[in-house]
C-alpha cells in the first residue's frame, strides 16, 4: 500500500510581515502540509511573532520554528512560546530545535553541543508536558501547559547528532542530502540511536530536509543552486555525506571571495553575487552536487525524484528553497501546479 507523501516548506521571515502572511496563505492554498519559519534573529522577523500571526491566517497548515536553538532563548521561553502558538493553532504545531547555524554564527558563538541539546530538549519536553523541572535548585513549570501533544523534533545533520536525536526526541529533521546512499546511511544512524533508547525507527517522525530549487530548465535550476551546492559539497558542510552519496569531487582551491559573502554562501543576501563567487567550480561538479543535495531541476524532474525516493521509505519532506532573502514563490507555483498533481495521480497525495 502506498503511503501519502507529506510536504512542508521553509519560509524565511525576511519579507515585511503583511507580505509574509499573504505568502503563507498562498502556501496553504497550493496544498502544502506545513511551513517552517526560519529562526535567525539578525536575518528574519521574530519566528514566534511570525508563527503567532501565521496561526491566525491559516486553518490547516502545520506550523513550526525551523529551526530554533537552545541558546538565544531560555528553554522556558521556548516552551512558553511554543505552547502559546499551539493555543492559536491547536494540534497544528511542532517544535523543531537544532544546534544553531546562522543564529549562532551571526552572534559569534559556536553551535550548541550535543550535551546542550539533550538538556534543552529534556527541559522543553517536560515543561510542555506540564511537569516540574529543576533549574539549579529552583522548581520551574509552565503554568499554562495544555497537555496536548506537541511533537519535539531535533534537527540533525551529522551522524552523532542523528543518533542523539533518535534517542531523545519524538522525531528528527534530517539535513543530510537526498540520494540513495545518503538516505540509507542516515537511516542506519537513526536506527542505532533509537535502539539506544529501546525504540524502533517506526517510533520516530522522520522529516527529510531537502534543498529545493525549480526552474524551467535543468541548467538554470543548477545555476541558481550553485551557492548552496558549493557551500554543502565543496566547503564541506555536508562532509559526512559526500562519500555515501557516491560523489567524486576534484580538489579545488577555494578563493577568498567565497568567505566574504554575508552571512555565508548558502544564506547570501545578494544571490547573483554568491553565484558569481562560485565560478571556480565546474558545471559538471555542480550537477553532481545538485542531484545529491535535493530537488534541483524542472518541476517534472522534482516530482520524479520524489517518487523514486518514496521507494526508500521517504514519506515526509521539508523543502528548503535555496534563497533566504527572496520568498520561494516559484517553488510554491511549481509544487501546486505540477508536482502535487503528479503525486496525486500516483496515489502519493
Amino acid at each position: 500500500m502506498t503511503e501519502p507523501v507529506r510536504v512542508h516548506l521553509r519560509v524565511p521571515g525576511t519579507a515585511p510581515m503583511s507580505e509574509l502572511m499573504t505568502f503563507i496563505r498562498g502556501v496553504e492554498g497550493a496544498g502544502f502540509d506545513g511551513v517552517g519559519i526560519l529562526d535567525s534573529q539578525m536575518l528574519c522577523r521574530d519566528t514566534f511573532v511570525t508563527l503567532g500571526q501565521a496561526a491566525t491566517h491559516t486553518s490547516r497548515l502545520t506550523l513550526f520554528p525551523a529551526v530554533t536553538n537552545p541558546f538565544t532563548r531560555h528553554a522556558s521561553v521556548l516552551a512558553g512560546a511554543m505552547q502559546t502558538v499551539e493555543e492559536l493553532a491547536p494540534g497544528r504545531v511542532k517544535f523543531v530545535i537544532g544546534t544553531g547555524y546562522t543564529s549562532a554564527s551571526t552572534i559569534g558563538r559556536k553551535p550548541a553541543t550535543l550535551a546542550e541539546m539533550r538538556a534543552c530538549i529534556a527541559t522543553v519536553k517536560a515543561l510542555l508536558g506540564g511537569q516540574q523541572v529543576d533549574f539549579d535548585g529552583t522548581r520551574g513549570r509552565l503554568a499554562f501547559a495544555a497537555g496536548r501533544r506537541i511533537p519535539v523534533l531535533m534537527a540533525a545533520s551529522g551522524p552523532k547528532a542523528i543518533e542523539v536525536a533518535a534517542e531523545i526526541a519524538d522525531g528528527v529533521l534530517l539535513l543530510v542530502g537526498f540520494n540513495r546512499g545518503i538516505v540509507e546511511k542516515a537511516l542506519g544512524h537513526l536506527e542505532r540511536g533509537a535502539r539506544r533508547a529501546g525504540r524502533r525507527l517506526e517510533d520516530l517522525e522522520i522529516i527529510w530536509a531537502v534543498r529545493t530549487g525549480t526552474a524551467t530548465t535543468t541548467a538554470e535550476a543548477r545555476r541558481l543552486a550553485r551557492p548552496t551546492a558549493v557551500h554543502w559539497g565543496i566547503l564541506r558542510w555536508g562532509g559526512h555525506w559526500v562519500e555515501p552519496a557516491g560523489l567524486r569531487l576534484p580538489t579545488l582551491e577555494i578563493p577568498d571571495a567565497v568567505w566574504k559573502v554575508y552571512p555565508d554562501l548558502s544564506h547570501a543576501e545578494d544571490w547573483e553575487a554568491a553565484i558569481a563567487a562560485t565560478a571556480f567550480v565546474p558545471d559538471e561538479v555542480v550537477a553532481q552536487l545538485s542531484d545529491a543535495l535535493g530537488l534541483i531541476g524542472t518541476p517534472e524532474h522534482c516530482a520524479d525524484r520524489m517518487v523514486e525516493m518514496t521507494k526508500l521509505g521517504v514519506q515526509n519532506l521539508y523543502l528548503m528553497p535555496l534563497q533566504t532573502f527572496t520568498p520561494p514563490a516559484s517553488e510554491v507555483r511549481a509544487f501546486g501546479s505540477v508536482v502535487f498533481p503528479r503525486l496525486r495521480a500516483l496515489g502519493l497525495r
Partner: protein
Amino acid sequence: MASLARFGVVLLPESLAGFGDLCREAEESGFDVLGVADSQSVFRELYVALTVAALNTSRVRLGPLVTNPLTRHLVVTASAVSSIDEVSGGRAILGIGSGDSAIFTIGAPPATLAGLEDAVVTLGRLTSGARVDREGRRWQVHRSARRVPLYLAAEGPRTLELAGRTADGVIVGLGLTPEVIRLSRAAIERGARAAGRTLEDLDIWWFAKTNVATTREEAIRPITMALAASANHAFRFTLAGKGVPAALHDRIKGLQRDYDAHHHEIAGAGNAELTDRWGLTEFLADRFAIAGTADDCVRQIQRAMEAGAHQFVITSFVPEPRAFMRQWMHEVAPAVG
C-alpha cells in the same frame, strides 16, 4: 503650565482568548500606552501577545512592560521588538528591567547594573539598525529602520540614575508618595545631568497598582498580591536610600522570603495574603497603589502630581479588567484635571 495627567496600562496575557478585545478596550478607553507583561512560565509568550495587541489596535503605543536582558539574547529582543514595530506600524516601545518572576522562576540571578546599561545601549543601537561589534561579529538587525524608544524600569537610586543617563524614558517603580517621587526625580535628574540632559528630555512614567471600588478597603483587597509583588521587587537588593521606615525593614524581608514567583501578580493566589501576614497592607497601599473610590483615586493622583509625577502606568490586575479600564478613564482620569 501644569501638565495634564496621562495614563498607560499593563495587561497580563493570562490567556490569548479575548486578549485582542481587551487591548482594543484599552485603546478605546483612551490609554496612551499599552504594556504587556513578560514572564514566560506564567503568562503567554510576550511577542505573540504583543502581535495580537498590535493587530487589534491602531493608535496606542505598545511594548513589553517589562522584559529583561537575560531570558532572550539581546539580538532576539531587538529583532522581536522591531517585528512588533513593523506589525503595529511604528508604535512599539521597549520596557526593560533587571528581571522579576521571569528569572526567579528559573533560578537565575537578576541583571546587574552593568548588564542593564549594556542592554539599554545595545538595544538602542540594534533597533535603530546600527551595527554593534561584539564577540568578534557584527550584530545587526538588518531590517530595523526606527529606533524603538527604550524605557528602563527602575526602583533603586542607582538604577534611576542609570535610566536618567542612558534611556529614553523611565518606568519608576519605587512608589508614589510625595517623598518617594521627589527622591526618584532627583536620582533621575542626577543621571540626566551626567549625560548633559535634563528631566524634560526623559519620558517618565510612574508605576501604580490600581483599583476602583465603593470603599477603599474593597479596592485594596483584590490587589494585595500586586502590592506584595511591589514590595518583593522594589526593595529586593537593598532598602537603603528608598525612604522605608527602619521599623518595617524586617517585615519587608519576611514578606520577600515568603513570596512565590510562580504566582506572580495572579489574583487570589498565595501571595495575596502576604501583606496582611506581615502587617504591611496599609504601608504598601499608600506607597504603591492608587486605589479606593473614584474620588480617593483622584485625590491620590493629585497628590502625586503636586510632587512632580504626571504620567502613570497603571495595572489592571483585577477580576474585571475591561470594566475597570473603562471606569478609570471615564470617571477617574477626567476628574483629575
